[in-house]
């Protein structure tokens, strides 16, 4: 009896790109790109070497933060950031609700739908920092420009998700309410609101968190908040104050994250 002979080698078949030539082309392409890309990075090593000492000081500043000597500036920035965060979230959500309803295909007439969807698209396409530049140019420096920026960004975020939610609701429930002869307002109030309300609250809390993080950034272009304080601290090479500010930001974000997840559980 002869035993059939089995192969002694095995290669794992390619999983994504099946054609050998394509695979080779792809590999060469990636390699060439990486060489070009890394080649385009010009590094002034002398400058980096000088910077190492500063980097060390920054890490030391992070480990031994100095909360006290710039406390007045820090607290001012924090108050601006926090108030800006809250007001912009409230206003942003309040404006998002009608826009979100208007951007839901199943509720709004065609022309309103297109208007609302384009507002959302504009708000989402532009980054907070770019919006902030414009608002600072228009409204002057300070937290008011920041407030407007964050409100505008909130609209794009909340209204989009709200509209998508409304479009995905259970049509049967809306049908049932409609069949009782309810008006458009009553449909929104009885069929839509109960279904999307929990999610709207969750999204608002999430946006509150994002707005705080963003409020730390837009200060760099003059829109007030803790970002402006941080910018100043770094410009003055006061790394221990900068470290303190960063730790405060991290701390508040952590608290906000745990707090909002707790609150969401509590509200449901």
């Amino acid at each position, binding site marked *: 009896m002869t035993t*059939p002979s*089995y*192969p*002694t*080698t*095995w*290669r*794992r*078949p390619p*999983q994504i790109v099946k054609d050998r030539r394509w695979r080779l082309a792809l590999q060469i392409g990636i390699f060439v790109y990486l060489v070009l890309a890394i080649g385009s990075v010009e590094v002034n090593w002398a400058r980096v070497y000088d910077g190492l000492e500063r980097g060390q000081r920054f890490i030391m500043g992070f480990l031994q933060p100095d909360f006290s000597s710039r406390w007045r500036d820090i607290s001012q920035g924090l108050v601006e950031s926090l108030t800006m965060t809250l007001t912009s979230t409230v206003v942003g959500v309040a404006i998002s609700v009608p826009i979100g309803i208007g951007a839901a295909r199943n509720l709004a007439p065609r022309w309103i739908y297109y208007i609302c969807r384009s507002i959302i698209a504009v708000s989402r396409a532009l980054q907070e920092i770019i919006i902030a530049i414009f608002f600072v140019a228009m409204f002057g420096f300070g937290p008011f420009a920041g407030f407007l920026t964050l409100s505008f960004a909130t609209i794009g975020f909340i209204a989009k998700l709200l509209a998508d939610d409304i479009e995905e609701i259970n049509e049967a429930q809306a049908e049932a309410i409609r069949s009782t002869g309810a008006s458009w307002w009553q449909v929104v109030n009885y069929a839509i609101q109960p279904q999307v309300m929990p999610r709207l609250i969750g999204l608002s809390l999430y946006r509150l968190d994002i707005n705080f993080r963003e409020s730390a950034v837009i200060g760099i272009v003059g829109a007030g908040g803790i970002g402006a304080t941080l910018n100043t601290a770094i410009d003055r090479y006061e790394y221990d104050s900068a470290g303190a500010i960063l730790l405060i930001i991290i701390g508040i974000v952590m608290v906000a994250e745990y707090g909002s997840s707790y609150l969401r559980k509590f509200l449901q």
Partner: protein
Amino acid sequence: MLHLERLSKTYKTGETALHEVTLDVPKGQILGLIGPSGAGKSTLIRCINRLVEPSSGKVLLGDVDLARLGKTDLRKQRRRIGMIFQEYALVERLTVMENVLSGRLGYVPFWRSFLRKYPAADIQRAYRLLDRVGLIDHADKRADALSGGQRQRVGIARALAQDPELLLVDEPTASLDPKTSRQIMRLLTEVCTERGLPAIVNIHDVPLAQQFMQRIVGLRAGRVVFDGPPEALTESALTQIYGEEDWNAMRAGDAEQAAAEAEARDRIAALAK
């Protein structure tokens, strides 16, 4: 070949899963382990290769007490024990061949397994086993492209790739239809007889156990309450194992359990997408 001595397991929750189980499995014997759910069947076979740490007692495979081994020695000894799982437990996103070759992991150094550069003998063995279980044409397919029965065949091939001296089989047919179940059981008993392999098979289907097993051990609440040939498994013996309830009804319950598990599996699969 395998000798368990006063093997006990108490979980952290305080639940005693096994109570001083003593058992001898000679070479070449296929032993069916039956009992109601929660009787400790799964714990018992996992205590043998220490996927579950036994609380006390001895697990002697040949001359080696597995219960007392350190991490490295345990890995060496695990190679001697092939295991076949209820839900196949194949690595779904790897090819069939890689799944079979993974049975050799204990024998090859990391770099070989990482680069998939297994020794020629291992690859030949894997092909031979795939041929034996009738899946040689599927070697390059991904495991998640196979049917349930085919996956369990790959599971068997993986266990045999270890060149084991003992097979542990955990509910091999729980997620299969009756016909496929019989085919898998037949294949299992055949490969064991060919190699003179002893096997411990957890099985909830009593008629299937009676048909294929050489010896039946009944477990109830962590204790051995029956040990004998399939013919000795009378109505009264079954009552002793499964309690006063009608054991036919118990099997219906098991079917329900299997359905629930299948549903949970589908849910997990849907989530993973």
